[in-house]
Each structure stands twice: as structure tokens, then as C-alpha cells.
């Protein structure tokens, strides 16, 4: 029996291939070189990402197409999301180097794992089938589990890694089980083929729907949607801050793209089934995100709940099933990266001085470091959705999409929770500006932190005032869907 190999257009995979080579090279380098070359490894990792971006830019003129028998898709959505993934990896990496150095985590493996998780995420966003989706997801997740536990000598860090791993495995199992049910019902794992099978079938089989539900649950775990969010606060708190900053943004971009692929390419005919489920998840997630943060005293836990809240909004955009909704999701994700990176960067800046992760440690920051305090308030205001910052426009578009799709109740609920959520953002601002300073806050802000802060602040402000370009870009990236 002759095995027919599918056509393989490796050019389309060039960013992933390049990053894989970089990862392997760095692994070898870190194994054989001494301590003195660690700085070099970090620089090389960053250059690798930049190089991948250059290659990605070079690909942008190629016509969108699929390869590997449809398992790998290179379309505008994938390219847009890969841009976001590269940014969401590069910025946390850039701002982490000093932190890693300080805490003795500056070994080559850290960079290698970061890049392998990036490769996994990029595979996810290009996935044309459940198989590649699963492979990418696992590659990304496994790397991140290790990263979360990277501070081996710290109990909290290893606990975080282990928790993440165990619960993540459970979720992977559920995802895989759902995939097998879908395969059983349709006889294929390719998204387009699944969609065709559903369309041509006389009636929707319950097995297929069950499979779809389980797949959605599996991805929901990755974005930390309630009730599959419980790992998030513990992992965010326990993991090294640099890792927290990374896992707060990068996997979310990948997982939401996976949602796009699965829901709109494979299960678009099942919209009536998954839309209500996502709405329920959205409401629960919003509730957990806004209420959970109120009782927190640790800034990393608080930001964990904050990110859960943002996921609630993203789910609303997803559930509308309209182009405006999808556009709002991409737009929201793009802004979320910068808001979140900016906030975590400030946590890292202040962390350098041995200030703990307690929110009360930030008391009176405004009197000593007015600029840092101003930036922190800006990110907080943006997350709370206060104009004229990017977070406001992001929320506005999600709400507009929800209202246009007739989801008035959902829109109202989300606004209420956003208002409750504003409380804890504003509490941070209040602590920074009105409480009496206890810390000296005499740390220096390194160049890399300055760069990251400047980029994030600029984007949050400029996009807030002139959102047009980014909105157009978001719209273009989701046009191939539906």
C-alpha cells in the first residue's frame, strides 16, 4: 500500500521552524557554555523572536493558504495572532532579565522553554485540525508548567507548577476526549471537514455536541474561565513574577485564537449550542473576576482575578458570533497585552527593591516616584475601562457588539461587574496616591523597563485616543472567519 504524503509547503512554517532552530541552538549553548554566556543567551532569544517577526513580515505578502493536508493554516487571523504572540513573548522576556538575574533564575533553559511555549502557541493559532491544536496546546502548556515551577527552591513556585500541571493535564484529557468524540461522530479531525460533516448530516448527533462541549471546556481552562479558573490565582501568585507576566498574556492570545478556530471553523453550525454555554461562562467569569479581586491583598493574585475579568469580556465578544464581536475580541486582546505587560512591568520594577507583592507596599508611591505612580494609575484606569485609554475603547466595542447581537442582559451584567471591578483598580490608585509612604522607593528603572513601560503606556494612551488603525487591523484579521 503506497502512502500518499500530503503536500508540504514548509515556507509557510518558516517562523516556527526558525524559532525551533533558535530553541535547540540555545539549549545546546546553555548546556555547554558557562555562566558568563547567560546574558548572551537572553539576547539571542530576543533576537530570535525579532528574526521570527521579520520572517513573519516577509510572509505577509503570500496568499493565505493551508498546507500539510489542511492541518496547518496560514491566514490573516493566524498572522495577526502570531504578531500578538511575538509581542506577548518579547515584552515579558525583555523586562524579566534583571528579575531573573537577581533571583538566580538566569539559566538558558528559561529562554528555551519560553520559546518552545511560543512555538506551541504559534502552532495552535495556525491549527487547521484538532490534532495540531492539541499538539500545540500541549507544547505550550508543558513548557509553561515547567516555567511556573522554575524557582525550584521556592515551595510556592514548585507548588504552583505542580498544581498547574495536574489541573492542566485534567483539562487536556477533557479536550482530548472531546476531540475523540468529535472524530467518532464525524470521522475527521480537520475543522473544515468537521464543519462539512455537520452541515451534510440530517440531524446533529448528541455525541458531536458532547464532544464540542468538552473541547470548549478544555480551552476554557487555558483562558481561566470560571469555573475552570481556580488554578489561576495560585499559579499567578506562586510562579516567579516574570513567568506570571508571561502566562498572563501569551497563552490567552493562543487560546482565544483556538476558540475562533474551533467555534467558527469547526462548530459554526452549532452556534445555538455553544453560544448560551459561552454566555453562562462569561457571566460566571465576570463575577469571579470582579468579586474575587476585592478581597485580595497580593498584587499578583489581584492581577490574576483582573485577567479573569478581562476573559469574561472577551468571552462576550466571542459569543456574539458577529464580525463586530470577533473584531472586538482581537482588539481587546491586543490592548490587554499592553495593559497587562505594563502593570506587571511596574510590579517587576518595584520588586527589585525587595518590596513584596503586597498591595500595601505600594502606599504613597506617588509622593516618591510620581511618574511610576502615574503610569500605574494609567494602566489601572485603562483596565477599569476609563476613557480616554485603550481599555475603554476595548470594552466599548465588546459592549457594542453585544448590544447589536441583542445580548442586552449580558451587556448590562458585564457593565455592572465592570463597575464592581473598577473598585479594586481604583483602590490601587488610592493607595498609591493617598496613603502614607512606608517604602523608600529609591530604585533605579533600568533601560529595558523604561522601554517596556514607554511602549505599553504609549499604546494604551494613543490607542485610547486614536483607535482607528488598530480597529481596522483587528477587523482585517477576522474577515476570513465566518
Amino acid at each position: 500500500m503506497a502512502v500518499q504524503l500530503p503536500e508540504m509547503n514548509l515556507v509557510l512554517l518558516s517562523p516556527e521552524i526558525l524559532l525551533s532552530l533558535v530553541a535547540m541552538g540555545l539549549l545546546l549553548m546553555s548546556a555547554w557554555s558557562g555562566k558568563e554566556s547567560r546574558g548572551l543567551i537572553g539576547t539571542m532569544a530576543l533576537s530570535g523572536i525579532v528574526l521570527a517577526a521579520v520572517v513573519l513580515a516577509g510572509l505577509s505578502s503570500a496568499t493565505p493558504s493551508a498546507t500539510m493536508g489542511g492541518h496547518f493554516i496560514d491566514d490573516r487571523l493566524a498572522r495577526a495572532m502570531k504578531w500578538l504572540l511575538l509581542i506577548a513573548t518579547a515584552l515579558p522576556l525583555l523586562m524579566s532579565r534583571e528579575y531573573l538575574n537577581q533571583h538566580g533564575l538566569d539559566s538558558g533553559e528559561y529562554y528555551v522553554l519560553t520559546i518552545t511555549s511560543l512555538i506551541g502557541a504559534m502552532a495552535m493559532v495556525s491549527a487547521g485540525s484538532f490534532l495540531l491544536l492539541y499538539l500545540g496546546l500541549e507544547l505550550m502548556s508543558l513548557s509553561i508548567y515547567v516555567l511556573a515551577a522554575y524557582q525550584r527552591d521556592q515551595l510556592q513556585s514548585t507548588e504552583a507548577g505542580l498544581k498547574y500541571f495536574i489541573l492542566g493535564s485534567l483539562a487536556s484529557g477533557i479536550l482530548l476526549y472531546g476531540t475523540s468524540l468529535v472524530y467518532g461522530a464525524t470521522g475527521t479531525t480537520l475543522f473544515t471537514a468537521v464543519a462539512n460533516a455537520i452541515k451534510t448530516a440530517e440531524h446533529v448527533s448528541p455525541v458531536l455536541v458532547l464532544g464540542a462541549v468538552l473541547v470548549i471546556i478544555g480551552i476554557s481552562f487555558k483562558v481561566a474561565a470560571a469555573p475552570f479558573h481556580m488554578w489561576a490565582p495560585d499559579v499567578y501568585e506562586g510562579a516567579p513574577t516574570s513567568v506570571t507576566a508571561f502566562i498572563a498574556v501569551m497563552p490567552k492570545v493562543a487560546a482565544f485564537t483556538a476558540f475562533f478556530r474551533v467555534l467558527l471553523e469547526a462548530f459554526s453550525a452549532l452556534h445555538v449550542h455553544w453560544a448560551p454555554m459561552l454566555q453562562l461562562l462569561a457571566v460566571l467569569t465576570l463575577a469571579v473576576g470582579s468579586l474575587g479581586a476585592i478581597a485580595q491583598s497580593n498584587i499578583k493574585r489581584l492581577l490574576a482575578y483582573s485577567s479573569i475579568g478581562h476573559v469574561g469580556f472577551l468571552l462576550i465578544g466571542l459569543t456574539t458570533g458577529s464580525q463586530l464581536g470577533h473584531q472586538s475580541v482581537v482588539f481587546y486582546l491586543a490592548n490587554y497585552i499592553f495593559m497587562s505587560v505594563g502593570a506587571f512591568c511596574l510590579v517587576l520594577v518595584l520588586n527589585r527593591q525587595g518590596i513584596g507583592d503586597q498591595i500595601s507596599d505600594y502606599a504613597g508611591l506617588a509622593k516618591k516616584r510620581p511618574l511610576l505612580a502615574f503610569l500605574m494609575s494609567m494602566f489601572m484606569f485603562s483596565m477599569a475601562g476609563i476613557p480616554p485609554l485603550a481599555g475603554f475603547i476595548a470594552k466599548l466595542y465588546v459592549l457594542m457588539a453585544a448590544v447589536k447581537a441583542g445580548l442586552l442582559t449580558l451587556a448590562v451584567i458585564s457593565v455592572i461587574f465592570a463597575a464592581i471591578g473598577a473598585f479594586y483598580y481604583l483602590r490601587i490608585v488610592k493607595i498609591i496616591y493617598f496613603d502614607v509612604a512606608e517604602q523608600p522607593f529609591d530604585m533605579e528603572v533600568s533601560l529595558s523597563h523604561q522601554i517596556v513601560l514607554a511602549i505599553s503606556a504609549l499604546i494604551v494612551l494613543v490607542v485610547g485616543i486614536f483607535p482607528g488603525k488598530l480597529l481596522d487591523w483587528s477587523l482585517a484579521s477576522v474577515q476570513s472567519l465566518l
Partner: protein
Amino acid sequence: MSKYLLIVLAPLFGSMIAGFFGRLLGNRLASLVTIAGMSVSALLAIITFFEIAVGNGDPVRQEVWSWIVSGEFRVSFGLLIDRLTAVMLIVVSGISTLIHIYSMGYMAEDPDQPRFFSYLSLFTFAMLMLVTGDSFLQLFFGWEGVGLASYLLIGFWFKKESACNAAIKAFLVNRVGDFGFALGIFTIYQVFHTLDYATVFRMAGTGQYPQTVDFLFWGPVHTMTLICLLLFIGAMGKSAQFILHTWLPDAMEGPTPVSALIHAATMVTAGVFMVCRASPLFELSETALTVVTVIGAITAFFAATVGLVQNDIKRVIAYSTCSQLGYMFFAAGVSAYSAAIFHLMTHAFFKALLFLSAGAVIHSMHHEQDMRKMGGLRKKIPITYTVMMIGTLALTGFPFLAGFYSKDAILEAAYAAHSTAGTFAWTLGMIGAVLTTFYSFRLIFMTFHGRPADHHSYDHAHESPWVMLGPLMVLAVGALFAGMLGESMTHLGWFKSAIFLAPGHDAMEHAHHVSAWVKWSPFLMFLIGLGMAWLLYVRMPELPGIIAGHYRATHRFLLNAWYFDRLYDRLFVQPAKLIGEGLWLTGDAKIVDGCVNGVANLCQRWAEQLRSLQTGYVYHYAFAMLIGVLVLMSLYT
């Protein structure tokens, strides 16, 4: 920039320079800057007056810039200068300039002069906007602008509690009027879909509007009556007419130049100007005209009675102003608009003169305003005495002085109207004329004649500096000759298209042909009033006390200005305070705060519960996940 525009803007420039750079410029320079701005404005106003009012120039219409463009709604900032505006321009710019100069002397010891002059010029700017506007919206802009300036200037000495209260009172009472005025403008827009004078008046004249409209909860009401009455409510507030008059006497808390400029010569006459400007509308509603006549007549009489017994020199003049405004309104009410404007002009001269002279008296008496503590000042301050006497004679209608022409024209017109309202107004106006003469000479006699009541103040009394006396003399010339020179204004058609008269509304025409006794009876009233004042305050100075003792209730009734303040306090102020307190203590503190804090507590409790779910044990988390899977599976498959 056209010269017409400069008339309006020059005071604004002065105001802005003095206001923003007053500290840098110092007192003297700041006042000089505003005076320079005013002089430019006044000079150009005089030129304009000669072009348009004396010469036979056509009305000027200029569109300066598109002010508001919002969909269908378009308003441009423009200038309309016809004979009506030209008269107002010379009154406003001219008198304002004189008062700016006078203030240099009067306010010499005040540390906040830049602020004062800035406000004063700002007021003039707003007033000029009001009179030059070519649409109702611009009129409203000026209307609110003068209200603001009036508020700022009444409360100029903001450390004095009474001044602050008076400022707030003036603002609030005017708000009532302005609310009506704004509703009137809204109605005009609703009916005509434009606020441009020319278009509105043309459409009104040709009847291109619905005869009835729905207003709030009332069914169909007559359109023109509704519009005019609403506009007139605004005029009542601004011009301190009966019912909305209570703020004017209290406004005397402001510096005296302010009283002269704003609360005598210009701002308070804005209502009269507006009614005349809107004559094409008022002429179409008999009801509105009757209301204007009756309210004006009542005010003329009421304020005069209150003026009889006041002891504060400024309050007497304030009530006199109120009363004279009443005359102007009932003139407008009987369609004698030209007489109203004529009296507005002459009144501006002699009333500003009276106020400024009173200011000079107060200045020379070291800020004493109670006439009972004055007396015999004639010998100490002869120039002030002379000019004040001229002002008084002009006000009371002594032959061939300003008031003689204008007030007589009003009374003749009211008589010649041959309507019930007209006759009512004529009767009250005649009685008012007696009272006017009486309280005016009472003021003169108590202040300048008799024996000094307070020897210490008397000995220190001194003539005011020339910077104050100069403007007084100019105004005295105006009070002497304005009537004679301006009489032609009352001739039919002098105002050309600016004033519209409906067919049959010919009171002004008939006024020139009334019988001789009607023409001379105001002079008789003057003689009666003068005689009574002489009898009571020169011949037998003990008599007023005896009479007051005899008719105690009446005296108190007049002294308290018919108890209006107390009535309003009971009717509006106290209930408003009660409602406010109720809303604060129950509505806000209990209900609103209760809800807000309750929700906050609830969120806090939920948050705590959510936190207790977060145990940290992996098997709890896994369990929660599986529950979630089960629930979702059972719900959605």
C-alpha cells in the same frame, strides 16, 4: 474688524487684560486699560449714532461668524444696528465710560480694582452683545452675560455676608425669569424653526405659524400670547418688575457705580429693550400687551409707595428705578414703544446721575448711607448738591428737563390708548408721579437741607475729587438736555422698521393730540408732590414721625416693601430648605448612601465567600472543575 464689531469687543479686550494681567498692571494701569477700551467703544458708538440715528443711514446687518451649526439648527453671531440699537449703544457705551472714570475715584482705596474694572467692562461687553444681537440666542447670551456680571459685581465685596446673600438672591430671582425667557426662546424655535430676528418677525408678520401650540401640560394655547408672556417673564426678572422685583433693592449691596450702571441705567432696562425689539411679536397678542401694561403700572405705583419711607439713600433710588421701569413697561404695553425707549434713554442719564451723586454723598460721608444721619450737606458739598438737584428735577418732570418730555409722553400715551388697561396705567402713573416727586425731594431735603444730624460726619464731609465730579457734570448736561434733544424719537416712524405697530395701535399718534389738561396734569402732580415734601421735611420736620406713629401698620407695610420678602421666605425659601434638608438627611444619607453601602457590603461578603472557596487544595480545584464539566454537559447536550 468692522467698527461695529469693535464697539462690542473693545470692552471685552479691556476686561480680559485687566482680569488676567491685573496683578501685573497694578490698580491704576488696569483701570486705565478698561477705560481706554470703553472710550474706543463709546467714540465708535457716537459715530454710529450719528450715522444711523441722526443721519439717515440704513440699518446695518453683519454676519460675523457661524456660531452654532448642529444639523438643522444654525445660529450665527451677527450684528444688527438699527435706530433702536443705536440709541441703546450710546446709552450703554456712553454711560459705562463715564462710570468707569467715576469708579477710579470712588474705588480708589479698594485693593481689588483690576477685578472690579474687569467685571465692569465684562458687563458692558455682555450688554452690548445683548443690544446688538441679530437673533434671540445672541440676545440670550448677552442676557445671561449681564446676569453673571451683575452677580459678580453685587457680590464684589464678597467678605461681606450681606453682599454675598444679595448676589445669590439676585441670581436666583433672575433664574426664575430666565427660565421663562428660555422657554420663550424654545417656543419661538419650535414655532418658527429659527431664532433669527428678521426671519421670525417676517414670518410672524405674514402669519406663517400655527395659531395654537401645546405648552407642557396645557392644551392648545394661543401661540403669540404664550411666546410673549414667556419672554415677558424674563423681562420681569431682569427689569425687576412686580413679583420678581425683590432682588433689586438688595442689589444695592454692590459698590455704588455698579448700582448706577447695572441696576439703574443699563441692565435693568434690558427687559424694556427686549419687549421693544420683539414688538412684531408683542403687537400680535392683545393679552400679552395687557399683562405688560398692568404689571408695569402696578410696579410703577408699588415701588413708588415703598420709596416713600426708605431711609437708605440708595434704596430710595433703587425703588425709584423699579418704579420708572414700570412706567417704561406700561408705555410698551400700550404700544408706545418709542416713548418707552425715550424714557429709557433719559432715565439712564438722570438715574445714573442720581446714583453717582448719591455715591458722592456716601463717599463724602465716609460710607454712611442712612439719610437720617445726614442733613444740611448743601453747604459742604455744593457741586454734588447742584448736580443731584438737576437729576431730581429731571426725574420728577420739571418743565423742559429730561423727565418732563419722556414721562409726559408715556402718561399721554397711556391716556390716549383709551383702553381699560391704559386708563388703569394712567391713573396709577399719575399717583406714582406725585409719589415720585415726594420721595425724590424727601431725599434732597433729608440729605442736603435742615440741620446736620451727625456733627462728626458733617464736619468731615468733603467734596469728591474731580475724577468723580467730571462724569457727574457730563451726566447733568444729559439730564438737562436729553429730553429736549430726543423728543423727535417719539414721532411716528422715527424708529423705522425697528419697531412694529399693529393697525389700530395708535396710542402714540393720539398722544400728541390730547387735551391740554392731560398734558399739564403731570406738572400739577409735580407741584403737589413738591409741596408735600416741603411741608413734611422742611416746614414741619416733626410731622412725618407723628404720621408714621398714627398709621403704624401702613408704615410698617411700606417699610417692609409690602412684605414680599417675608412672603417669599415663607412660600419658597423655607419649604425649599425643608425639602433640601429632607433630601439630604433621608434621601441621600439614608436611602442613597444606604443602597450604595449596602451593595458594597454585599460585594465584600461575596468576595470573602469566593475567597474561602479558593482553598489551595488541588483536589478541591479538580472537583470544582469536574462539577463544572458535569453541569455544562447536562445543560448543553
